């Protein structure tokens, strides 16, 4: 009986501890030395230039993908959609961004329609192939075209499948692998909104 009571106490105790946690502890892989996000691309919806500074004052979730990708990219955008729903009205101060790794096939028009099919507020950013490659290299993002002989796809693009959390100052704060818990991402966004 005593052992059983101890077990219950321990279980309840561990629940309380995990609920408290630290003040700004993020769930994602935290970048110890956050880098400033800096780019000049094109907003696929308006065709206007879009700079990293256009995100300042907002918390952003950003990832690299392409519209032709049937699996990983819609999974990530679906996660973004659920994060937005989880945030409710707070999502007004959050931007959800996809940068194309396939600028040759992803015309701005196609890209904007693709991201809008998940949520009209989602932003698709386009740049010419050289600009995209340069940007990817600067941030250690893999974006490699790969010809696939036995596929009607022609070529596929191997790419980094992580979502990145950007704070209101434009600093890259954390990364999330594919399949991260939506609640964890939403909690981190809330933490940065409160900073």
């Amino acid at each position: 009986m005593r052992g059983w009571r101890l077990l219950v106490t321990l279980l309840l105790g561990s629940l309380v501890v995990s609920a408290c946690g630290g003040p700004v502890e993020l769930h994602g892989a935290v970048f110890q030395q956050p880098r400033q996000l800096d780019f000049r691309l094109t907003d696929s919806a308006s065709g206007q230039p879009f700079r990293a500074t256009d995100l300042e004052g907002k918390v952003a979730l950003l990832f690299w993908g392409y519209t032709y990708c049937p699996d990983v990219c819609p999974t990530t955008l679906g996660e973004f959609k659920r994060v937005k729903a989880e945030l409710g009205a707070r999502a007004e101060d959050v931007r959800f961004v996809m940068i194309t790794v396939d600028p040759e096939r992803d015309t701005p028009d196609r890209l904007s329609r693709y991201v809008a099919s998940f949520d009209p507020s989602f932003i698709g950013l386009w740049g010419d192939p050289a600009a995209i490659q340069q940007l990817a290299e600067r941030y250690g993002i893999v974006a490699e075209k790969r010809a696939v002989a036995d596929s009607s796809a022609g070529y596929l693009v191997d790419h980094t499948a992580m979502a990145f959390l950007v704070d209101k100052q434009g600093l890259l704060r954390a990364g999330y692998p594919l399949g991260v818990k939506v609640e964890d991402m939403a909690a981190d966004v809330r933490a940065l909104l409160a900073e």
Partner: protein
Amino acid sequence: MQYARSVLCSLGFALALSLLCACGAASPPTSSLPAATPASSAAAIRVENAWARPATKMDGGMGESADMQHGSEQEGHASGMSEMAMGSTSAVYMRLVNATASPDAVVRAASEAAAAVELHTVEMENNVARMRPVSQIDIPANGMVELKPGGFHVMLLGIKQDLEPGDTVALTLTLQSGGTLNVDAPVQEQPAQ
């Protein structure tokens, strides 16, 4: 003390109940409607929880091409290929359960819903996703294989119309053992992980 004990007892009961619930949720559904009907001698392979991803048909600015009408007959044809490459993609997922003592495999998938249908997988390495066509998806004997986001999937290339929740994608899977399976995959948003 008596009171404290009864509180503890109810806590214990609640805990046991939640554990029971957790077990219930983890076990496969037993009463769901079958998503597949055996088209021939493939009854030993069961399809569960099939679903297709919503997608919007896009022509990539090239407009509707006659090639699209001919579907997979255009495989290998240069202009057909570029049209497929410019079209929209979707993916179908499911669990394939093999109740027999012999291993089997899906070797081909076909559907009227898209210009081409392929078996693909995603290899993840250091958070880099590398999608690749595969020649077959093995279904182990007395086992199962899961087609799920971030792994094996049936890729639809050049969908012929928008796929919206409520629609159904009809697929035919050809098995290594010779049979075929007809799968009706409802279009739905990706279930939460």
